[in-house]
């Protein structure tokens, strides 16, 4: 017989080292006796070679070592031995009695972990260094260390401690430390929010649906003594039948004849009733793109014959708070002038109302809005154009086309007259396109085409 002495609790390191020694020595499971809680547990060092195990086994070992069952190490070693001796797929055979037994142990540890995540209740105390949160909890298995990550991730900015009969852990906002077993009287006895919580718990309960069996299946009675809300359960159950009887026996009460005509009418009429009202909403809404310091609103008279829709404000537009005032805006102005269109008489706006950019050093680099972002803004664009009521809507560039049609249509093959919903429309390039062309000949050609578009637009408007 080979005796393996292990520390009390979940001695994962000790067990791992023992497995390496035992496998190296070819020790069969029936020759090994594991003794937990030994004062003379060996240090986990060993020279024996590592035992390669699939990750699923390692996960199973980590869970099952936390269990209180004294047979846990022997069962795990039997599994490892069999897998090491050729039964590589043993874990897939959930119907195997050994696998079944180990999976049940793992399941009960997982459940215990889950319940600790759920049922720990912190109480707050004031200290000279600020607030601290302390909880008393009684886990069923040796799971204190295994829950540390969960509580640190969730409450990283808090100073907290969890006290249990198997040990304690404390997080001071930067470091985790473990300590000896604690007793209940070390934990605070009250918390200012507990009454409110109990009140919430009582109110969210529906007395017409009492089902204590279901409650106890998920929240076993052994946890009740450490749950402040559970103290209310007996009375809630006692009062439930009377409360339901009262609800059912009470005649349908005569409804208070509340028909606040004015309020109902006002409620139904909430859509903004003018372009100014809509603009106020747009201006006060947070940007739906990265960057975007302020909303750049459309500009031009109501009832304008032509409405131009661009992509989004650029750096200059964002600074000035007006559409089409940057380099592309200047190209646009020149083309309008050439075509004999008075900019003051047309409506100019953008599909996206905020400047989307990333900061690179001192420069704010324009980012093209995604289809989703364009659609976020389309409600506003639509409402805006309905107020202006132009005869022709001009989409300049792919983003405007997407906003007005909902579809990603290529500009070049759709350039020219079209319809947007029930209005005459026109698709052309965005003026910034003219700024990006590499050679003079192309620039000339595209400029002429753009001006020709503007002339055509003037004719159909």
């Amino acid at each position: 017989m080979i005796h393996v002495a292990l520390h009390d609790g979940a001695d994962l390191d000790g067990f791992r080292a023992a497995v390496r020694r035992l496998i190296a020595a070819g020790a069969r499971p029936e020759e090994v006796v594991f003794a937990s809680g030994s004062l003379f547990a060996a240090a986990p060092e060993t020279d024996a070679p590592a035992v390669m195990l699939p990750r699923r086994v390692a996960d199973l070992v980590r869970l099952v070592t936390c269990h209180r069952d004294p047979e846990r190490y022997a069962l795990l070693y039997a599994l490892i031995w069999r897998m090491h001796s050729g039964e590589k797929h043993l874990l897939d055979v959930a119907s195997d009695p050994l696998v079944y037994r180990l999976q049940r142990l793992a399941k009960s540890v997982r459940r215990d972990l889950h319940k600790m995540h759920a049922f720990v209740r912190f109480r707050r105390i004031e200290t000279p260094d600020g607030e601290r949160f302390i909880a008393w909890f009684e886990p069923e298995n040796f799971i204190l260390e295994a829950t540390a990550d969960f509580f640190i991730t969730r409450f990283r900015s808090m100073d907290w401690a969890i006290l249990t009969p198997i040990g304690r852990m404390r997080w001071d906002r930067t470091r985790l430390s473990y300590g000896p077993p604690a007793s209940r009287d070390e934990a605070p006895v009250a918390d200012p929010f507990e009454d409110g919580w109990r009140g919430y718990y009582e109110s969210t309960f529906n007395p017409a649906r009492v089902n204590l069996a279901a409650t106890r299946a998920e929240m076993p009675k052994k946890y009740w003594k450490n749950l402040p809300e559970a103290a209310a359960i007996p009375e809630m159950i006692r009062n439930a039948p009377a409360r339901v009887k009262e609800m059912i026996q009470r005649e349908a009460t005569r409804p208070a004849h509340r028909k606040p005509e004015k309020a109902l009418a006002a409620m139904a009429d909430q859509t903004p009733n003018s372009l100014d009202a809509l603009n106020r909403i747009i201006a006060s809404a947070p940007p739906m793109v990265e960057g975007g310091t302020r909303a750049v609103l459309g500009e031009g008279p109501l009832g304008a014959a032509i409405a131009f829709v661009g992509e989004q404000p650029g750096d200059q537009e964002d600074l000035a708070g007006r559409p089409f005032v940057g380099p592309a805006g200047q190209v646009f102005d020149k083309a309008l002038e050439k075509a004999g269109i008075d900019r003051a008489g047309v409506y100019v706006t953008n599909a996206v109302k905020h400047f989307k950019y990333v900061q690179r050093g001192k420069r704010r680099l324009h980012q093209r809005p995604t289809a989703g972002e364009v659609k976020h803004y389309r409600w506003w664009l639509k409402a805006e154009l309905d107020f202006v009521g132009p005869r022709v809507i001009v989409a300049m560039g792919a983003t405007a086309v997407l906003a007005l049609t909902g579809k990603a249509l290529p500009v070049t093959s759709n350039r020219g007259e079209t319809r947007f919903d029930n209005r005459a429309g026109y698709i052309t390039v965005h003026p910034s396109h003219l700024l990006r062309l590499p050679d003079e000949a192309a620039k000339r050609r595209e400029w002429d085409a753009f001006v020709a578009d503007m002339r055509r637009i003037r004719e159909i408007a």
Partner: protein
Amino acid sequence: MDPRLAAKLRILADAAKYDASCASSGAPKRSGGAKGLGSTSGMGICHAYTPDGRCVSLLKILLTNWCLYDCAYCVNRRSSNTPRARFSVEEVVTLTLEFYKRNYIEGLFLSSGVAKSPDATMEDLLRVARTLRRDHGFAGYIHLKAIPEASPWLVEQAGRWADRLSINLELPSEASLKTLAPEKSAPAIAGAMDQMRERIDEAKAEKLRFAPAGQSTQVIVGADATTDEGVLRASARLYGSYRLRRVYYSAFSPIPEPSSVLPVKPPPLRRENRLYQADWLLRFYGFSVDEIAAGGEGGMLDLDADPKLAWALKHRAAFPVDINRAPREMLLRIPGLGVKAVNRAIAARRHTRLRLADLARLTPSLKRALPFIVAADHRAPGLDRLDLRRHLVKPPEQLTLFP
């Protein structure tokens, strides 16, 4: 805690409890980090259970139960004499943070009566979510109720702060909605659901954050004459057209301050239970509404047998199914075998021939499966018995409201 705040909390929690949803699952893994507070892991956590067996995961409250709508099934309708209260944005933020820090909850489920206008209400809901996320670095779960009549741009913004959005369908047919909820409109609800579906899909494609845990809805069962089949058809449509994550069924429950147009008697709670089972069959077991309906009578599910057993009893020609050979979709049709048990059986049978003793370790409800399966040492006994149903179905017990 301030007693006035505690009193409001009682009123506004009581007013919110008829919403069945309390799930906190489906959010991406994230945490508030060194300055913020909270985390989500994809799996929800139930922090407590009330004596009705329901889980308390989120702080489920209304911002206000003042409401201009007059929906007959709702305790908060404008003509009801229920006590009223209203939280400020800051009060909800404080309650959420303080409850969260004590590990009472996973996050917030905030809904509201429609007080001034749908837009004003939606803006208040938004403000709570934005304050929690932006000013307090709150990384816990947030479920917001979307007000379908609110302007579309507000619903768009809500998705940026919330993990889940939901709009309650409440009644499965447009006609019932008209009689029982005169201010609501079915097209408005459908329009808002459609808008949210589109945004959720696009955000996923662009890796943006928009209601990452999807949308859900609730249907009240037993307040109108719709059959189970009708309810399930409505659900199938919602899952299909709007890709809802969940449809919750809420057996119409007696409420304080009942309206006179409602039925006096609530439907048996088991009806709700059967609908959930049928819903599961729709989503995870490859059943169609027609097949589920065929297990019952006249469009209603069999209250005494779960819908899978009810279907199997009426379609015995499809059985027995050989555990060691049958394809996955047939294993899923065996009464008593869940998805997990089926997956385990498929993995195990690659390495061994399954016998009854093996199966008993794969599922806790083998007894129900026995007449329908073939195993290495077992061959479906009594599949042709006339009294098979009586043999498998527990005699109906008197369901009572007072346990």
